[in-house]
């Protein structure tokens, strides 16, 4: 044990963004040689806290201590110099450069005339790689490495300074089971060297395997810290979502509408294989699984964005082949994509123009766009979805996330689709608007739409779906009705355990 009680400690952190209080009086610490897991739903404030710890955000209030020394972190570089390093979920390496250059990027060793001292660079890098038991050399180009090994490079980069605390953000999201074991070994080594580890993950089984303590955030507030050995998944979940997980939604009706969309044995490269399911009018079918399990790929394939390698798609009793998004739209399919700003909206266009975009070719009098027709559509869906905007001229980019998402949903409802696919309906949306969008999806089903919802958030999928399909590595592992699903069996199904 080190002489210090904590490697990293924060006290009373408050961070507000326009429209949201992301962190509200959060205190948290990690001891040297400890793995401290940080848990919370999406939007609970984990990423914000992590960015505060790593010097990417300045807190509005509160204090940070590194080895019990008060610290003010102006930048990630400063945080790193003081010994706090963040290992990103999305790797940030220069792909075309060598491993060694990446490890020492920005502080390459120099010799005379400012030339790079390659010998020293490779030797230093080699030493760090050995410490991590890596089986690749410092001269390897990063682009030739697997994701897991890239992650090792990222960790190696953290070790160029005397790290006191290392923050891992969802490190296993894209690792295989074997690669995961290697990572856990590295984490144990770091622990043994007295480094404090902050471990952020959604995966309960990992957290219970490697952590010493677990802290939970909910809606930006600190909900408590538990000793891992004294607790169980139920208790942690209760802290996370604020209630015992009951999936009751009240007044759930089992759908009796006709089957609208039926797919059989869909396969698409190595993204998904032999996927069969059907959706009825009046129901919400949920797709749940980890990122990369193939849920989004299925939606994109149905919408003509990916070519199917095999399988049959039957819409209202007729077999169809979808060749392009345009074609999918004409067939009556609608996709609210997972990335609202990149795929869903033209941010520089007005609310109205975004909403009428898919059907602009039909909204005409003679060769010209019918202004009245457009405004009529905008008004109808603004009222139906209670979109808050000063007027139709308002640029979509200036709306809040929730209202932006409603514009995307409205744009597709205005097409009167046969099947509405919603991918991550509430990503990056505040808690209030979330509930509103969940209700909206329920109402749409009640109005007779066939709705498919894809989500990575368990509470979301449980509260909106009539049936849930669990996916693991491109295959459907299990289908649940709302009555038989529990958090446990759902987690098992998406981890390939059932």
């Amino acid at each position: 044990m080190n002489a210090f009680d904590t490697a990293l400690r924060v006290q009373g952190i408050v961070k507000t963004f326009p429209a949201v209080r992301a962190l509200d009086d959060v205190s948290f610490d990690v001891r040297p040689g400890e793995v401290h897991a940080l848990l919370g739903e999406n939007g609970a404030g984990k990423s914000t806290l992590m960015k505060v710890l790593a010097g990417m955000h300045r807190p509005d209030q509160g204090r940070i201590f590194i080895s019990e020394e008060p610290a003010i972190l102006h930048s990630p570089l400063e945080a790193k110099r003081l010994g706090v390093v963040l290992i990103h979920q999305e790797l940030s390496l220069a792909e075309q450069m060598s491993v060694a250059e990446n490890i020492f990027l920005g502080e390459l060793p120099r010799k005379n005339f400012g030339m790079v001292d390659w010998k020293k660079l490779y030797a230093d890098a080699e030493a760090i790689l050995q410490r991590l038991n890596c089986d690749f050399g410092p001269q390897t180009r990063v682009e030739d490495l697997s994701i897991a090994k890239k992650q090792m490079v990222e960790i190696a980069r953290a070790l160029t300074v005397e790290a006191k605390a290392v923050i891992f953000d969802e490190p296993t999201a894209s690792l295989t089971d074997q690669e995961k074991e290697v990572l856990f070994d590295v984490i144990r080594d770091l622990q043994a060297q007295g480094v404090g580890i902050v471990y952020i993950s959604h995966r309960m089984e990992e957290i219970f395997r490697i952590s010493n303590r677990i802290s939970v955030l909910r809606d930006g507030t600190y909900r408590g810290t538990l000793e891992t050995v004294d607790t169980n998944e139920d208790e942690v979940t209760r802290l996370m979502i604020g209630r015992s997980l009951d999936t009751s939604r009240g007044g759930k009706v089992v759908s009796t509408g006709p089957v609208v969309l039926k797919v059989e044995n869909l396969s698409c490269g190595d993204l998904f294989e032999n996927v069969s399911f059907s959706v009825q009018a009046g129901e919400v079918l949920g797709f749940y699984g980890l990122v990369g399990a193939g849920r989004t790929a299925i939606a994109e394939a149905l919408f003509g964005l990916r070519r199917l390698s095999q399988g049959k798609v039957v819409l209202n009793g007729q077999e169809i082949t979808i060749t392009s998004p345009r074609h999918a739209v004409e067939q009556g399919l609608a996709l609210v994509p997972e990335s609202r700003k990149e795929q869903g909206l033209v941010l520089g266009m007005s609310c109205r123009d975004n909403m009428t975009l898919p059907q602009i070719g039909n909204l005409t009098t003679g060769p010209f766009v019918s202004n009245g027709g457009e405004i009529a559509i905008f008004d109808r869906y603004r009222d139906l979805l209670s979109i808050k905007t000063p007027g139709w001229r308002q640029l979509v980019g200036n709306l809040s996330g929730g209202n932006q998402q409603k514009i995307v949903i409205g744009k597709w409802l205005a097409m009167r689709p046969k099947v509405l696919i919603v991918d991550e309906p509430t990503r990056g949306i505040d808690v209030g608007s979330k509930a509103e969008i969940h209700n909206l999806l329920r109402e749409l089903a009640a109005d007779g739409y066939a709705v498919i919802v894809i989500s990575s958030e368990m509470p979301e999928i449980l509260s909106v779906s009539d049936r849930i399909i669990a996916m693991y590595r491109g295959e459907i592992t299990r289908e649940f009705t709302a009555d038989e699903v529990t958090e446990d069996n759902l987690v098992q199904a998406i981890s390939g355990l059932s």
Partner: protein
Amino acid sequence: MAEATLTSNRLKGLGGTLAKQGILIAFIVFMIGFALFSEKFLTSGNVMTVIRQAAIVGVMAIGVTVVVIGGNLDLSVGSMLSFSTVLVVDLHDKIGPGEAIAVMLVATLVLGALNGFLIGYLRLNSLIVTLGMLSAIQGLTLIYTGGQNVDISHQDTTWFAVFGRGQVFGLPVPILIFAVVAVIVHVVLAYTPYGRRVYAVGGNPMAAVFSGIRRNRVVACSYLISAFCTGIAAVILGSRVMGSQNNVGQGYELLVLAAVILGGTSLLGGSGSVLKTVIGVLILGFIQNGLLLLGYAYYVQWLVTWVVIILAVWLDVAAKRGRLFSPIA
């Protein structure tokens, strides 16, 4: 995007107005300056001359505006102008004026279609494709003429003269053509489904595709429009000169792009308008004319034009970033 709103709000007051309307303000300052130093500058005769001369660049720039709003570039219009002018002038005596115009327009559209296919359907980088086309079409023109200049023999009797030299209701025909093309393309961009799609594709190509818009077709069509406008410009130019050198359009691609940028159409795509481009064309025309009237050699224009363009681009990005100087983008 919340971020962008914040930054644009940061530029308030005089500085903000300056940055946002900078081009118009600079234009007015220029006009007043020139008018003070040269009494000829603001006479209706001189103004007409400027607009008439600007009409060729103007018609081309209107077509290129559509391409740029769609998120691409078209640098091939310079040598396309050479090609089309040579073709229409050469065919004039051989097959007659009407037929020459028709054949030339079809040939120009074929070139535009090639641009459109490579950039729209094969999704190649527009800068590289049109830069290559710039040189390829110049080569094509020289192969066609064998290096000889072409001209029209009976310049005084052909009705072809009307496009470059004629007047209707006291207005030079090139100005009328410029105005008509501007109005038509403006209406297409502002009031038709196609126009809306161009803005969507330029603003966010991914979201456009996710909305069921056929991006390939929209982009390809923008190059057809650009080529057609260049064809019209070639009619004006051929008719005015009644002959053509092989490289008559050389350098026009930059003047055209300069006019589009000066007007304030963003090279990133998704915003801009024909109206802005018309203003850009006029600014360019008046600056060049003013400098000539003040007695500067014609090559001084090149330098001044460059300064004005850099200034315009700077003010444009400054307005977006919310500050004039920025260490990071």
